[in-house]
């Protein structure tokens, strides 16, 4: 059974079919729009759900003279951003959307008469950027003050704009405006050969580089029915987990920094440096760029090198445990982390939250186990779940996942089969659209690709975990004090770049 299946339906059947799927326990995953070339013209919408251990795409056609499509956001808050993004980039309006503000375009001048992701988009017609005017809802009332922060922030952090409405120290409401680092990467990938578009996929985000690269490769492999050698499947697991390890170390260090426990953070940061150096030894690049390939990997890892890396990781884990034993004994740490930034189960589900944040709020969800890819089906993947949904829960989930990741790297290297690390690709002959799904450090990262008849990219859409989780971060800040916001933000530590693309 393929990981991704499609079902065609008329656009009018969309809402009732969605209701039926949700009743059967399906989870909304992404919405992809594309413009069709050729005689039929028009647009295709793919509403993708995770359902019964595979992904199901509901495919509906919009004729070329249609200017809108029925919105599902009132029923599915998780679809909110995707529908607004389609409005900005395709000019198709989500009819009945409860909050149809612009999302991707931040100035009043727009991106030209023809939206960017349409085929007859004219780059020359795009006006120079005007001053940014994020369209944010305002609250008014006695004692209420508005605190704007960003996009340029005080530390080493990506750009985003946060508008706090505060009553004294307490956050009454937080609105987040992202897309400051929108670079138009999906458009950029169109017309490229898959191997060239892979370099774009790797650079959607530096922190999730391998995860996005792998999702993209899996999507192409899915579309063209490319088999991947077993050795590559195991090495892909090791690389994915090495990326998770350096990310989680950084996230935990970040949380300790934001409660001013700089000594603890310093230890975790030096361990992160070790993890980055191990990634370099393993895949040739600290962030594992240039390692994943369509059909496998770009280079092999010799057995001796792999064994040394596994051994160094085991030593790193011992050090990590010693540091965490000291850190978790501290009352201040518990006092700051416990009860802060609660994301409750209902809100997490409604927003389609994924990854460690979902697991910390009680949702049992992990692509490695739900839709196993690479060699995960042959390995033991423990899932850690908490129910409180506070910063402490997210902290504990990441600590447990770090342990599990080290074990997974060691297991993958232990069981590494002999053989080639890449299939020979003689050409790209797509059978249809392709979907790749991976569990990145922040959760489920999806990639959908449509190839044209020559095998070049016609459409590439990446829906990363960060994209799904950002709205939940804003919700979980309400009711907390302003000084706790950096900590709450770091407990999710979502990427801006892979949200904005």
């Amino acid at each position, binding site marked *: 059974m393929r990981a991704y299946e499609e079902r065609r339906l008329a656009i009018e059947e969309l809402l009732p079919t969605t209701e039926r799927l949700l009743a059967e326990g399906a989870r909304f995953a992404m919405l992809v729009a594309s413009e069709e070339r050729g005689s039929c013209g028009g647009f295709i919408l793919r509403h993708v759900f995770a359902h019964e251990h595979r992904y199901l795409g509901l495919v509906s056609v919009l004729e070329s003279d249609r200017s809108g499509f029925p919105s599902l956001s009132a029923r599915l808050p998780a679809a909110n951003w995707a529908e607004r993004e389609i409005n900005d980039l395709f000019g198709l309006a989500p009819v009945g959307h409860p909050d149809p503000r612009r999302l991707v375009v931040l100035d009043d001048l727009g991106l030209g008469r023809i939206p960017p992701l349409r085929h007859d988009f004219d780059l020359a017609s795009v006006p120079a950027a005007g001053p940014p005017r994020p369209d944010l809802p305002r609250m008014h009332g006695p004692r209420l003050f508005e605190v704007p922060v960003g996009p*340029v922030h005080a530390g080493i*952090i990506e750009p985003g704009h946060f508008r706090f409405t505060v009553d004294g120290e307490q956050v009454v409401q937080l609105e987040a405006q992202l897309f400051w680092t929108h670079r138009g990467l999906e458009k950029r990938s169109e017309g490229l050969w898959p191997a060239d578009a892979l370099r774009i996929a790797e*650079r959607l985000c*530096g922190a999730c580089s391998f995860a996005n690269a792998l999702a993209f490769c899996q999507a192409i492999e899915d579309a063209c029915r490319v088999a991947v050698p077993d050795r590559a499947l195991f090495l892909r697991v090791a690389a994915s987990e090495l990326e998770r390890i350096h990310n989680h170390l950084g996230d935990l260090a970040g949380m300790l920094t934001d409660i001013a426990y700089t000594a603890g953070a310093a230890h975790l*940061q030096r361990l992160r*440096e070790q993890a980055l150096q191990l990634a370099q030894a393993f895949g040739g690049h600290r962030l594992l760029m240039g390692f994943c390939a369509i059909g496998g990997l770009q280079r092999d890892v010799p057995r001796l090198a792999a064994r040394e890396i596994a051994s160094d990781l085991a030593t790193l884990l011992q050090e990590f445990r010693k*540091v965490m034993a000291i850190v978790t004994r501290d009352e201040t740490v518990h006092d700051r982390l416990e009860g802060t930034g609660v994301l409750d189960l209902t809100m997490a589900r409604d927003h389609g939250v994924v990854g460690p944040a979902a697991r910390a709020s009680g949702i049992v969800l992990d692509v490695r186990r739900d839709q196993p890819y690479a060699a995960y089906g042959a390995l033991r993947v423990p899932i850690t779940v908490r129910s409180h949904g506070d910063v402490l829960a997210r902290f504990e989930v990441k600590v447990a996942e770090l342990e599990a990741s080290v074990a997974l790297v060691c297991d993958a290297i232990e069981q590494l089969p002999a053989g080639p690390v890449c299939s020979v690709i003689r050409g790209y002959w797509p059978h249809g659209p392709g979907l790749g799904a991976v569990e990145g450090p922040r959760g489920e990262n999806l990639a959908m690709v449509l190839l044209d008849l020559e095998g070049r990219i016609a459409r590439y859409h990446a829906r990363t975990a960060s994209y799904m989780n950002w709205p939940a971060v804003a919700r979980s800040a309400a009711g907390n004090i302003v000084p706790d916001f950096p900590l709450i933000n770091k407990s999710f530590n979502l*990427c801006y770049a892979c949200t904005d693309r």
Partner: protein
Amino acid sequence: MWHMLFKSLLTGVVSDPELARAGEAVKRRARGIFGRSLQVRLVDAGSCNGCEIEIGQLLTPAYDLQRFGIDIVASPRHADALLVTGPVSRNMAHALLATWEATPAPKVVIAAGDCACDGGVIGAGYASAGGVDRVLPVDVRIPGCPPSPRLLLEGLLVAMGTYEAQPHRAH
């Protein structure tokens, strides 16, 4: 508290001695020009955050940038240099320019990473300018995707030299 104190003392120095030598050169230059230090403000103008990860590593004990008299400051008002990453996304163009205008002269602009240097893999498009020099005058370019922390430190050394060449410098 004592457990953490003993742990840190026992862990000792973790940074590379070779890097210490490179950094000493930066420190001497900084003292010569400023008498104190080089204050740097980072602006992420649309990077993938890979450069941010490596710049962030410079502040950790593995590289300990601050011992060389270089620091990342919270505001462009406090900065001698702007460290800019990314190809300048459309939505960040104005914020980048405003940050530069808020930085008092004399100032230096350092483009870090391939995207900032010349657009890199991303290039120019409807939402990307194709490099920092499309928006600001650039004094130093540090290539790499992303540049390693060591290369970033060497780039800061070059930036010091550029700063020295500017007229009207303040002490």
